[in-house]
């Protein structure tokens, strides 16, 4: 069975979700729950770090689409970081770089939130 898990940490007002393993139609609900929990707690400044993510399918990409509008309406954002070339290529094929800011490292993505303030 595909291994996938997430861990969440906070850096100031920014919540960082680290993804690990394989994100597909089976495991996407785990990430969905993370977003639901953060939105419930009014945490709208979110960095998703991909550095330990081995695989993503469109079911995983769909999770980002599902919550971005609500988060931006609440003056927040989802910023992405640490993608492998393979994962970036899938985001790129679907035009995601036009909709999301993508950074090399988690630190750069977190810093972007701080700069805005």
């Amino acid at each position, binding site marked *: 069975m*595909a291994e996938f898990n997430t861990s969440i940490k906070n850096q100031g007002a920014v919540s960082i979700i680290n993804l690990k393993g394989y994100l*597909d*139609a089976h495991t996407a609900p785990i990430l969905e729950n993370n977003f639901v929990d953060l939105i419930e707690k009014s945490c709208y400044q979110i960095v998703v770090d991909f550095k330990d993510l081995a*695989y993503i399918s*469109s079911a995983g990409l769909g999770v980002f*689409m*599902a919550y971005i509008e609500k988060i931006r309406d609440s003056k927040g954002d989802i910023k992405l970081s640490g993608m492998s070339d393979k994962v970036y290529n899938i985001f790129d*094929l*679907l035009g*995601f770089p036009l909709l999301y800011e993508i950074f090399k490292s988690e630190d750069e993505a977190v810093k972007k939130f701080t700069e805005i303030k």
Partner: protein
Amino acid sequence: MKTKKLKVKSKTENLSTIRDFISSSAADAGVAADAVENIILAVDEACTNIIKHAYKSFPDGELIIKTKSTLSRFEVSITDYGKSFEPEMIPEPDLQKYYRQRRVGGLGMYLMKTLMDDVKYVTVPGKYNEVLLSKNIKVAQSNAG
């Protein structure tokens, strides 16, 4: 010509078994590593669509995945016995529109078409549906001559 076959139930937890099967079949057929990754994703998308739409997430449906390889081509056929669908009814995705509507359906089909060289759908109403995905195998440089 090499052929291999995998039969699994229509549950998303089987997607990883399907990916492992495709990974080893394609590697055995001599497909280059980056093309193997593309085939794995295309097959995952096809099977996810079948589980969610043809079987409407009913877990006891059957998916039969067959691979066939020749020197120049790697083919995957996926058969199911669920509800048939008309691929031409699914529009090409417009991401800006999707963003506004928070819709994601259709991304999988777009990826399949982009990642593979050929995608075909065969439906025998009331009997079975089949998706055929194929990828041309690049001839190794030493033979390209």
